């Protein structure tokens, strides 16, 4: 968690905003995930989000569903994703956040997951099907291990829930840009900037926005209103069609192009 807080502080001092790319671990295999993660860290990512594949990802659109499916096909599971995080930690100090559905974490054990994650150098978790109301047991385990529990807020949340999420979240608050599931979108909601301004006025913690963001132009438009931008499906789409050095190079260049509008003047 300290790495997340330090990263946002450091960026703020520089007048920079965080780029937070997401890829599904094990898609198409763990070696590729590792190479991609290191490349993204090198080319401008400030925090990394690694997806734990799950059979029934009900907050995800077709792109990340397919990635999850590919990763499961090669047998990727939570323990392997944790191990991968440990290997990455040997090579980079970038904050590592795991994003995964609740059941695999529950089956591995909340405390076991949290303790292993801490031992291997993971900084936080995002669990998209664990709303504030159900998060008590996980928060307890995560706090004991010094992990950030990153909560989400959505356009449907309303001021009271956003305020509460802002108070309970650690690391940053993840604002879901659209009423919907993950997936690259041509256009973001017209009222997104107004919504971000409102969220900003309600919470003190760092604020990141994600879901549907896929181009440097979109990133540029949102940068003034947030502390970080999450890009997922647009990267995962590239993982789906490219391979080997060509994939690594393409993703690296894409990350650089996304980071550009987030750098301080």
């Amino acid at each position, binding site marked *: 968690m300290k790495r997340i807080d330090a990263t946002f502080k450091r960026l703020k001092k520089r007048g920079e905003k965080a780029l937070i790319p997401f890829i599904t671990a094990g898609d198409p295999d763990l070696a590729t995930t590792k190479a991609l993660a290191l490349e993204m860290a090198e080319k401008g990512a400030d925090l990394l989000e690694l997806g734990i594949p799950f059979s029934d990802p009900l907050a995800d659109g077709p792109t990340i569903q397919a990635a999850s499916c590919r990763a499961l096909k090669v047998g990727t599971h939570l323990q392997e994703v944790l191990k991968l995080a440990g290997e990455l930690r040997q090579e980079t100090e970038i904050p590592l956040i795991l994003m995964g559905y609740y*059941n695999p974490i529950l089956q591995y054990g909340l405390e076991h997951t949290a303790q292993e994650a801490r031992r291997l150098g993971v900084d936080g978790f995002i669990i998209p099907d664990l709303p504030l109301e159900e998060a008590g047991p996980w928060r307890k385990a995560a706090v004991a291990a010094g992990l950030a529990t990153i909560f989400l807020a959505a356009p449907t949340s309303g001021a009271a829930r956003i305020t509460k999420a802002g108070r309970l979240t650690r690391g940053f608050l993840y604002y879901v840009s659209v009423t919907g599931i993950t997936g690259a979108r041509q256009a973001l909601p017209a009222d997104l900037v107004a919504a971000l301004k409102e969220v900003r006025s309600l919470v003190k913690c760092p604020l990141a926005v994600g879901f549907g963001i896929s181009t440097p132009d979109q990133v540029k438009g949102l940068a003034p209103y947030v502390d970080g931008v999450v890009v997922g499906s647009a990267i995962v789409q590239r993982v789906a069609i490219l391979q080997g050095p060509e994939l690594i190079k393409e993703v690296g260049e894409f990350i650089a192009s996304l980071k550009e509008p987030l750098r301080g003047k």
Partner: protein
Amino acid sequence: MLPDKHGRYGPYGGRFVPETLMPALLELEEAYRRISRDKEFKDEVAWYLKDYVGRPTPLYFARHLTEALGGPQIYIKREDLAHTGAHKINNTLGQGLLARRMGKKRIIAETGAGQHGVATATVAALLGQECDIFMGTEDIRRQRLNVIRMRLLGARVIPVESGSCTLKDAMNEAIRDWVTNVRHTHYVLGSVGGPHPYPMIVRDFQSVIGQEAKAQLHRVTGRLPQCLVACVGGGSNAMGLFHAFYQDPVRFVGVEAAGHGLKSGHHSATLVAGSTGVLHGAFSYLLQDPWGNIQEAHSLAPGLDYPGVGPEHSFFKDSGRAEYVAVTDKEALEGFQLLSETEGILPALESSHAVAYLKKLAPQYGPDDLIIVNLSGRGDKDVDAVAQALEVSGEAH
């Protein structure tokens, strides 16, 4: 009465959903508590159940089945005679009227066997609501007749090609749609599963089954039954029958689908052979691998082909209030034949599981004992599958 204010039945239930849906679930819970107490709403539901659905459905004393089994007196609750041919309409009607009161103009639903989809499409046609039904492509193939029925009723049937292409995947897709269109759409969940308040709402709308059966049996015999039997997929027809008897000294038996056999790995016996975890918004028993990924279920009966189960059933299992057993595809087919030949009633393959288990229950009871079996649906939708399995010819010679 359970659930508690967190939507829990003991440790089971809850609301494990994306944040986007939480306000909708809270709104639904509040609206349901308010509207379901309203006399005008209650009268409206009662009127439709009587004049549109055809309730009360008969409680039929199955003399020939009783003789064939040679044990207790068997009464059949004829949900197969409800409009659309299954108990599903009790719930969709209630939720459709609720959605109208809440000002939601569009309703969506998942369906496996197609019975819940048909019942939802029916209510949408009746109430003038826009309707989309999510259905796995494997189920579309198996339940062609119901697909046509839904389309004739004016619903859109949206094929789901992810995962096992069955009910679980249709439910994922319905939830994804609801996340996206939550502001003007009501999700008509079809069983006593899913996030709170659905298990409570569906149970309440289905509990008319047990209320009627209790009064009907009392009128004829002046007694309570010794035992209730119903099939369990998600568990709505079983919960609907059981609930009115909750405080009574009556044995509850839920019959799950053992598919090709519990040891084969191809079954849907969530309570008998599963373990606890979170699926589709609720903590309950489910079928999963050691890493928490949901496993594919199997049953010849598409309505039972689901790797989860309603949280109140999980609570009943652990507390011992109900017992859960499983019968195989083969045994269910025998149950189908038994009821068809003794009583002239073609049961749905789902309900055939409950009928099949009567053979195992009968020897435990004497001729003065009473058993009610819930015939949750009629078998017309299954005749192709049954004909294939039993090699019954439809040719002239």
